[in-house]
């Protein structure tokens, strides 16, 4: 018998993932054209076994993109704050200056319906639900960055109450997944 898996984005202001003690810090300008450059800079001294090819860079770029594009609306006067710790695991806290991910519960519902369609082998519905569109989404937003993020950040992905700050961690067994 198959089991349906529905992960969720979680809000928990007091979660330990927001404890930045001992973490490195960098403040980034909200420059959309530099997102991948920012990720590469942060991961400059990352242990090679954590990189998983370019997967860690790709996943870090996604949460930086969410902060710059959706949070700070690419407003150059706004800063994206990034705390990171690459000792023993890859851990990040990213905070933008925007109004927060207000449609977090709506996204959770979208993801649950998408997973149910997959569980029921309803591929037409699954394809129709393949992309999430909020009122502020553009044609290149599809919510798939969050779907992948929920899978990738295996130690947790937690939002603060204002939903403008996210803490993530990926643990590695034997140096890599």
């Amino acid at each position, binding site marked *: 018998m198959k089991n349906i898996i529905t992960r969720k984005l979680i809000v928990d202001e007091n979660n330990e993932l927001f404890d930045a003690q001992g973490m490195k810090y960098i403040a980034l300008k909200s420059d959309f*054209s530099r*997102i*991948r450059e920012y990720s590469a800079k942060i991961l400059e001294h990352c242990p090679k076994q954590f990189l*998983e*090819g*370019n*997967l860690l860079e*790709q996943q870090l*770029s*996604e949460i930086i*993109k969410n902060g710059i594009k959706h949070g700070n609306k690419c407003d150059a006067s706004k800063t994206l704050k990034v705390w990171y710790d690459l000792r023993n695991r890859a851990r990040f806290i990213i905070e933008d200056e925007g109004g927060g991910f207000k449609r977090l519960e709506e996204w959770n519902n979208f993801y649950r319906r*998408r*997973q149910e369609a*997959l569980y029921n082998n309803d*591929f037409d519905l*699954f*394809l129709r639900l*393949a*992309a999430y569109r909020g009122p502020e989404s553009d*044609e*290149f*937003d*599809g919510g*798939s*960055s969050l*779907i*992948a993020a929920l*899978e*990738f950040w295996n130690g947790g992905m937690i939002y603060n109450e204002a939903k403008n700050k996210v803490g993530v961690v990926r643990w590695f067994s034997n140096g890599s997944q």
Partner: protein
Amino acid sequence: MEIQFFENKMDKSLTVKISGDCDLYNAHHLFNDVTGRMNSGCRAMYVDLSGVPYLDSSGVGAVIRIIQHSKSKKIDIKFRGIEGTVRKVMRLSNILSIITEDRQ
């Protein structure tokens, strides 16, 4: 990112070979170029991703929209060369189940 098209006049299929990173800065080119060729008419399309070392959520979004467009145009679409990190990203994004792979 470079996109090349190879036409097979015998079976009226089109092979799309993509090389280079497919990311937030260029995924819209992938969607526009590929669906533009779909609109010009073909029965089947093969999308070869073996030359793509980096795919992000914008690239995944472009792939999803290309599949949706092929359905609306009743074009049979198959993908080749989904390997390495690109395969991992597609698996994490949970879209491998809607992709038909042509394993040559």
